[in-house]
């Protein structure tokens, strides 16, 4: 964790508005993606993301880095919120993707393709374990290195290499089940 981020965290813990805003801007995208690939719905992902940062402001007093990245703490908050949602609704990760969720591209075919891929990915991720889902998200959706993923998940690099192999294999099988993959 950088000194700048540490300073921001300390200021935000005191309720400093600019520090809270800076942390929000830094981590919004990552937290949103994490939420999106867990709930599969843009509106709900936006709501959960917003709630994650409110909880962040309220709970920063209790934050203890313990050598892990700050965003890992935010993922943990998001994970708990999403688990609450699933408990309340008693449903699995099967959520429809609305039309507005896709990236704004001019090319309609690309839009359709991306939407399909995103739908498939969200649906297939539901078959994975939480660790497998996280390694797919961090490594291939967020584009983070093995070192970064290891720190986020509090595991060794070797464990991440092993986990990513199993995660990709599991994802492949899940996509086949969802008819999104043809060998």
């Amino acid at each position: 964790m950088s000194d700048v981020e540490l300073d921001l965290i300390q200021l935000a813990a005191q309720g400093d508005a600019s520090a809270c805003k800076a942390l929000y801007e830094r981590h919004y995208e990552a937290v949103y993606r994490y939420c999106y690939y867990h709930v599969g719905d843009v509106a709900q992902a936006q709501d959960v993301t917003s709630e994650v940062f409110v909880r962040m402001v309220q709970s920063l007093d209790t934050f203890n880095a313990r050598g892990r990245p700050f965003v890992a703490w935010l993922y943990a908050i998001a994970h708990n919120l999403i688990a609450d949602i699933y408990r309340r609704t008693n449903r699995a990760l099967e959520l429809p993707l609305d039309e507005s969720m896709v990236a704004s591209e001019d090319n309609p075919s690309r839009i359709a393709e991306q939407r399909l891929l995103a739908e498939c990915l969200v649906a297939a991720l539901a078959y994975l374990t939480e660790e497998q889902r996280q390694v797919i998200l961090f490594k291939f959706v967020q584009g983070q290195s093995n070192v970064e993923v290891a720190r986020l998940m509090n595991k060794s690099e070797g464990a991440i290499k092993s986990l990513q192999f199993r995660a990709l294999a599991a994802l492949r099988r899940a996509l086949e089940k969802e008819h999104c993959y043809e060998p």
Partner: protein
Amino acid sequence: MNPDLQVALDECLQLLQYGTDISVCLATYPQHASELRPLLELAAAVRKVDTPVPAESARAAGLHRILEAAAAKRASQSQPAFAPWHGLRSWLGDSQSLHKNVRLALQMTFASVMVLAVIISGTVVASAATMPGDVLYPVKLAAQQAQLTLTFGEVARQHLEEQFGVQQRLDVQRAVQAGRHAEVQLEGRVDQVAENVWVVNGLTIRFEPGTTVVGQPGIGVWVNVRARLPGDGSLIATQVVVTEGRHGQPPKTVPHVTAEPGGTSEPAGTPSVPGPKPKETPIPKSTLKSRPTDAMPPQAKPTDQPKLPPEPKATKEPKPTQESKPAREPKSPREPRP
């Protein structure tokens, strides 16, 4: 699970990230090509997936929510705290109006005062069990004096003085029994008078040649005693001053008696020279407040000296020649308490 396959997959994933073609990677690991290909293709496909972007309005609304939460947090933190320490720390840490250096200086000063207070209080606590001869015993006496100074109200003060008197007597007693070498000073009423031995405040005090006695001694009088502990379990008086009460002055126009070798002039040590009984010469504590200071001349307090001629007390003046000595002969009859 094949560890080689995991390593090959990881290396190929890194190569792909740098733009290497899958075929190049598969050529590097031909033995794993069939297993690697689908996984590498899948990884490449997942990397290409565009995550749906959130709406700007939602992002702005989220920011608005956390700014509200931050404001609520600031408001809750600015509430008056129960502990004064919290308020002071908040003021020192958060005040925007203070220059940074001034704030730092204040923080350093505050920290120093706190450290000093801890050291002093620790020393005072450590001195509580000391007795004469210990390094920290003066600290104990000073703490008692400070406590007396800070005690308001005549009754409370007198109660405390009695308490400390008892404590000091016990301290001296312990030091005597422990065979300590020390100089002590104590106050108290004379309980018994025998040849070369007085009992003051329950402590047996020996007189030696050279022991100075100021004032008219006797059973029941209040004395201020300076004594030394030679280390043999005894207490030897070096100076005894008869006072009018606790912290009092020696009586006016009193003889200055010096113990002579051989005990020829014991300090009122014989029954034939009875001192005033406690009931006869009560030492009203209420007069302590009205007692003149050292700087005041005796005539400044006319009520203390009735104009009636003093009754002759021949028996109380064993050595008339010594009456010529001024009452304030002792240099410091009113020794400050340590």
